[in-house]
């Protein structure tokens, strides 16, 4: 099982591995725009964002803006993944008017893992299982009332999830 490096230079890896707030600060300036995010406008699969090899670029492509940390998001992920191939990760939030939730694993070859569109009446409580190639932050981004919020947690991975 060989995971190609996919152009993650060490410096960037160091940056991305930083604490959640630092990593997110790197995502760019907080936008005050309330315009609907790019991808949420329709049901088109955001292929470009999923193909990105850089977490912050993926978020930019997906939303056209960056997120700010919020304590109204509860991200639940293990301290140590029992196996990187199957890492249970879930999120709940008390933020109102949530329209999308996405999961980003910056250390994966393709950092954007999942993007969930939340219709009115659907609750922003999601559980899923993701692959993690190695120890990484997991960032959840919640789009609520036109703004982007995030929460971050580091998950240690000693048996990698063979890619993804």
């Amino acid at each position, binding site marked *: *099982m060989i995971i190609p490096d996919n152009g993650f230079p060490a410096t960037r890896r160091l940056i991305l591995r930083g604490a959640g707030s630092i990593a997110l600060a790197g995502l760019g300036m907080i936008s005050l725009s309330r315009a609907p995010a790019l991808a949420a406008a329709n049901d088109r699969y955001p292929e470009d964002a999923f193909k990105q090899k850089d977490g912050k670029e993926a978020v930019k492509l997906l939303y056209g803006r960056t997120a700010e940390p919020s304590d109204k998001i509860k991200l639940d992920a*293990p*301290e*140590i*993944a*029992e*196996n990187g*191939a*199957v*890492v*249970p990760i*879930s999120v709940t939030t008390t933020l109102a008017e949530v329209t999308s939730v996405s999961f980003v694993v910056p250390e994966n070859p393709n950092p954007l893992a999942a993007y969930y569109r939340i219709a009115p009446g659907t609750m922003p409580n999601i*559980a899923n*299982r993701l692959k993690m190639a190695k120890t990484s932050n997991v960032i959840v981004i919640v789009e609520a009332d036109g703004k982007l919020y995030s929460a971050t947690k580091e998950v240690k*991975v*000693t*048996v990698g999830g063979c890619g993804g």
Partner: protein
Amino acid sequence: MKFRMPRSLSPERVPASPKPATEVSVRSRIHFALAALAALALSTLQPAGAADTPDPAADAKAFRDYFVNKFPNVKLEDFVNGPYALDGDMRRQWEEKEQFPPYEFSLEMGKEMFAKPFNNGKRYADCFENQGIGIKQTYPYFDEREGKVVTLELALNRCREKNGEAVLSYVGDEMAALTAYMAFTSRGRPFAIKVPDDPRALEAYQNGKRYFYTRRGQLNFSCATCHVQNPGERMRAEVLAPALGILNAMPIYRSEWGGMGTISRRFTTCNSQIRGVPLEPQAEEYRDLEYYLSYVSNGLPIAGPGARP
């Protein structure tokens, strides 16, 4: 006194593909040296063990007492959950997965396979007591006519052969699915393995025990090195399962395999992990080992199919 395995000694995961020989060669030298050093550092001379007449009932009691004393906070029936009985963080991940367990598809496949008639119109059910439902806790058993241990996997293939069907691979998905379904119908029933009053049965039991404690492979590990001396310890990311109840949740869906595996698959991969060449699946040694391990877990409930990292 705890023996923590040096990282360098932790058994390799079985690679999906054979490594290039040069790499193996270099790595083997390195591991070799480390294994030797560790062995030197840890070596003590001890006199050989005591009485040789096997007493399965006494063994089972001592075996159970050992684990209960080692893990006083773990409920007896919880030992069948392996590492999840010992590690809270892992247990939460497992409980989350059990909400919709990854072995569902295999279990369903097993159920369909089990119900489907052979070409001659007979079914698996015709080969087993109680139509094969709720009987896993009695396998393996000692067949006094044959003088050998018969495991469920072996019995399933014999059933196929008897009905003119090709045998299944012991380490493949189909055998895993079949045994998963059969274990599922036995969930909650305590292991009820018997060692009949027959010197051959006692010998098979003793051979299984010997296999369990015998060190092998370049890493010089026995089954007991990991599962008696170091359960609960981390070896890389994995938390080693206690030997008590270790077969109760078989077959298992391992995330590492990305699928379901039989007892045969687990035994053979354990062997390669310690750099020993595995025996052929269902070799007499493995059958005896399964017999021994199941017997000493008598009374603990069947929990298969299980999920493991």
